[in-house]
Structures are given as structure tokens and as C-alpha cells.
């Protein structure tokens, strides 16, 4: 390529600025993925409230949903700052169409019976605690602060999932049967949490994210220990559900988003 003034390498200061912008864009996509995970799972748990098996569970599930919405708010607000659009948490939650959401499919799976929700919570919370702890040790200061705070809350959600996995796994014949079926249903969607792509490769290289293969190994050991205590076995799925990180969701996703955005879309320009 002939060297002209326009194609000359930029002076070092500009190059640094370009690098910063590229790093911000990566962080914006990461916080969008993680923010969408929290938002969509929180939305699913909201659907349980007033329908839980006990009043204590209505309370527990709303508590977890509240934490997840809190995580989503922090992450989506940060994503809007980093991507240069200045979009707010609400712009991102209520202003995007279905295909623009980047949550893992696991988080959008319909609630099913209580066992399906427990299995989904078990898989997600063990992943989330490990990830948040790793973010806390990562190189991005904002995400590190988020990870440190969120990991403490998610550890309670994990404990909730662990206790129910044991109760249902060891409870009655029916609960064992339902819990086994739930694990089979949910487990194909766990692989996507650890999928690597160009984005995660760059974020691992930058020290923001931990290596995902190592995260997966730690997760497998962590959930296997709980399932073992619960007299259950780790499923070995023959297929894997993925696509959420590219905006290719399940058919259940459309109604979820339509419901979530319905009021805000009915009142354009409204203030809330």
C-alpha cells in the first residue's frame, strides 16, 4: 500500500486514544451481555411473585429479582456510557428490539415448575459468583467494584439455589423426579455461558475477564458438589442451546420483551 499522508500511522497520542476507544467498545459489549443476563433473569423471577410455593419463597424470589435488577441497572448504565451513545439504563432496557439483546439463552428460559427455576438458578448463580469474583480481581476498576459488590449478593442467591436443589433432590419421589427432569431441560443451555469469541479473547487478554475454560472447570466442580450432596447427577447434554450472545433468542423471548416494554412503548416521550 503506497504511503500517503492519510495512511501514515497516527501520532502516539492518537493511537493511545484509538486503543482506549476500542477497549471501551469491548467493555460496553461485555457490560451489555452481563447486564442483559441480570435483567432478563430478574424479569423471569418477577413472574414468580405471588405464585411461589410458600410466602417465604415469594419473599426470597422477589429479593433475588430485586438484586438482579440492581445489577442490570449498574451494568446497562455503564454500557451506555462506554459505547459513546449516552443511552441510559432505561433506554437500553426499554428501547431495544428483541434482536439487540445479548443475554445468554439460559436466563430467558421460561420458569417451568419450581424445579426448573431451581435448576436454572443453580446453573446461573454458580457461574455468576465465580465470574463476579474474577471481575473483582480484573483490570477494569468499575467492573472490579461491581464484581466485588455483586458477588456478595449472588452468594446468597447461590445458597438459596443450593438449599432447594438439596431439598428437591432428596425430598420425595416426586421432587426427585421433577428435579432430574429440570436439570435435563436446563443443562443444554449452560455451555453458552462459557463460550469464547473475539470479544472475550480480547477481554481475557486485557485482564478484564478470566479465561473462560478455567471458569467453566471451576463451575463444573462447584455445581457437581451440590448435585452430589442432593443425590443427583450432572446431566450430559447431547446438544447445546446457544445464540443469545448474537441476539438469536428462543421463541419465548419475544413475549417476555413485549411485556416488559409494553407500558413504556404505549406512552412515547413519557417521564416515569
Amino acid at each position, binding site marked *: 500500500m503506497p504511503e500517503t499522508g492519510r495512511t501514515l500511522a497516527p501520532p502516539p497520542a492518537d493511537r493511545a486514544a484509538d486503543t482506549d476507544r476500542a477497549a471501551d467498545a469491548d467493555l460496553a459489549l461485555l457490560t451489555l451481555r452481563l447486564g442483559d443476563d441480570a*435483567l432478563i433473569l430478574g424479569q423471569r423471577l418477577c413472574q414468580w411473585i405471588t405464585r411461589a410455593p*410458600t410466602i417465604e419463597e415469594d419473599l426470597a424470589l422477589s429479593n433475588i429479582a430485586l438484586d438482579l435488577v*440492581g445489577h442490570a441497572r449498574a451494568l446497562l448504565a455503564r454500557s451506555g456510557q462506554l459505547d459513546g451513545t449516552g443511552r441510559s439504563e432505561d433506554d437500553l432496557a426499554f428501547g431495544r428490539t428483541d434482536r439487540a439483546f445479548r443475554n445468554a439463552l439460559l436466563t430467558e428460559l421460561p420458569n417451568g*415448575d419450581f424445579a426448573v427455576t431451581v435448576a436454572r438458578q443453580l446453573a446461573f448463580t454458580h457461574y455468576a459468583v465465580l465470574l463476579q469474583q474474577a471481575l473483582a480481581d480484573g483490570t477494569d476498576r468499575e467492573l472490579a467494584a461491581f464484581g466485588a459488590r455483586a458477588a456478595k449478593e449472588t452468594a446468597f442467591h447461590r445458597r438459596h439455589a443450593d438449599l432447594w436443589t438439596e*431439598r428437591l433432590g432428596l425430598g420425595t419421589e*416426586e*421432587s426427585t423426579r421433577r428435579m432430574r427432569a429440570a436439570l435435563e431441560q436446563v443443562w443444554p443451555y449452560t455451555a453458552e455461558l462459557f463460550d469464547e469469541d473475539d470479544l472475550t479473547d480480547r477481554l481475557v487478554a486485557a485482564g478484564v475477564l478470566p479465561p473462560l475454560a478455567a471458569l467453566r472447570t471451576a463451575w463444573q466442580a462447584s455445581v457437581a458438589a451440590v448435585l452430589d450432596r442432593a443425590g443427583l447427577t450432572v446431566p450430559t447434554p447431547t446438544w447445546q442451546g446457544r445464540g443469545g450472545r448474537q441476539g438469536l433468542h428462543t421463541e419465548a423471548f419475544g413475549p417476555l420483551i413485549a411485556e416488559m416494554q409494553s*407500558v413504556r412503548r404505549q*406512552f412515547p416521550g*413519557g417521564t416515569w
Partner: protein
Amino acid sequence: MSAALAGAAPAAVTEEERAARFEELLGEGGTVEPRDWMPDGYRRMLLRQIAQHAHSEIIGMQPEGAWLTRAPSLHRKSVLIAKVQDEAGHGLYLYSAAETLGVDRAELLDALHQGKQRYAATFNHPALTWADTGAIAWLTDGAAVINQAPLCRTSYGPYARAMLRVCQEEAFHVRQGYDMMRALCEGTPEQRQMAQDAVDRWWLPAVALMFGPPDTVAGGADERTAALGAAVSRRAMAWGIKHHTNDELRQRFVDQCVPQAERLGLTLPDPNIRWNEERGHYDFGPIDWEVYRGALGDDSACARQRLAHRTAAHEDGAWVREAAAAHAAREHARTAGDARTPETAPDAAHTTEPAT
């Protein structure tokens, strides 16, 4: 335990003496505790009221809970989740207070599901728009706080203590509801219209149903209702379970809401509301109790829906509760077994040499 009833030797004390001591305690403004002697009627009235209150919290989660997935901002979603969560918590405090009177929660829930115990009929009104969640928090929680604040001094200790916590949280809900209505009123014309429509539909249910039937003044067809209400209120007040008549509290509510509505720029749907200089209160229109017979009779479509929703949740969750109970029983047996181990191996503790 109250001093007046402590140390009563059961054998030596007659029923009349116990009743006299009970009245004396109430006269001194004392607190009745679960192990204290109490008249059957007092226990029954309390149980009925506390159970109804607990059921109202649980059923009251539904109209707002249905909007959790549609809240139009993440801030409002968080606020609403926290509110519905508080209501579940209030239900738990109140069921616990009721259990001190010798029933258990499962029996109370069965009574609710079978329609044998009631809840506030206000919640048999449908929540049709997002603004309804604001109107419910501002108006029905506002009414609840006025109703419940005096219950923090009710004569039965466990109920009074539960109400202290409930009231603190309810007062917060009212402020949140008002803030939500304020945001709508400052928004687009369509948002203001939604806010006014919600107030139009929730004002009368709050004024009428949150305070119960008239118990001081009434006329015409409502005279019998008022006479019956007055008799119940007199008994409850004599026992220190309540301190004010339904109509006194209703007036207090109207006096509180009128200036708030004016600040919001909303019209309360009662053309008779006007300041009465002489009384120092706002006058308001008579409540047509015929209108509410449907809601009070538990036979409206929405009432059926509330109970069906609650019953379905309970029945769908039966296998989960059974699993938890089975697991807990096994754990209990196991830990009881562990606890016996030192007795079966009495020398175990002495087999190691002291470290020093």
C-alpha cells in the same frame, strides 16, 4: 408478660377474678401477652382481625404484582418489587402474630382458600393500568397507614409489635405511590389522563372499603349497617383492640388526601368534597354501600380471580412443600442422631491428651 397477670395461681383464681384482672390491665393501658388469660370473645375478635389483615397483605400482592413485569423504568420496577416483597413480609409477621393465639398458618391459609376468612375487599378491584399501582400505593396504602398507626398501640402485644414494623414500611409505600403519581402528573397529557383515571377508580374503594362499614353516622338504607358496625367497634374499642371508629379514621384519610390531590393537580371523584370551616374537616359525599355489596359479597369476577390465583399457587406448590418437609424431617432425625453420639460413646471426649 404483664405485671397484673403474672403470678396468678390458676387454681386459686376464679373466672370472674381473671376477667376483672384482664379489664384492670386494659384500663391501665397494659399489654396482653400470649400466655395471659383472655376472654374467648377477645381472642376470637383478634384472631379474626389479624387473619383478615394477613390475608389482605397476601391477596394485596396480586393487583400490583401483576405489573412487576411491565414497570416502565428499572427504578420503578425495583421500587415495586421491594413493595410487593414488603407485603409478603407483612403477611408473615401477621401470620406469626396470629399463631400466638393458638392456630397455625396452614389452617389460616386453608380458611382463606375456602372463603371462610375474608380479606380487604378493596383488592377485589382490578388494577387496569400502570397508574393503578401508584393509586393503590398512594390511596389504599395511605388508608392502611391511617387505619394501622393506632394498632401499634393495640392491646395485644404480638399484634402491636408486628404493626410497628408494618407501619414503618407502609408509610414508605405511600410516599413512593405519591411520587409515582407526581411523575405521571408531570408527564405527557396521556400520562396525566392515566393518573386521573386510576384515581377515579381507586378513590371510592379506598374510602369505603379500607375503613369498613359506617359505625357512627348513616341514614336510610345504611342505618342497620351503621348500627351493627357501631356495636362491633364499641366492643373492639372497649378491649383496646382499636382506638378509633371507622368513620373517624375515614375522615382523617379524606383530610389527608384532599390537599395532596390538589398538589398533584388531580380531582378526587366526589363533587361533595369541600372544606367545612365549622368542623375543621373536609365534608365528603355519603358512601352508597349498595355499590359495594358486590365487592363485599366476594362474588365479583375479580374476587374469584384473586382467590383462584392464590389457590392455584398453593396447590401448584404442594409438592415443593412436601419435599421440603420430608427433607427437614430427615435432617432433623439425622442431627438428633448426631446429638446422641456423645452419650453412646461417653469416653470419646477423653481419649485425646490435653494439648498442654
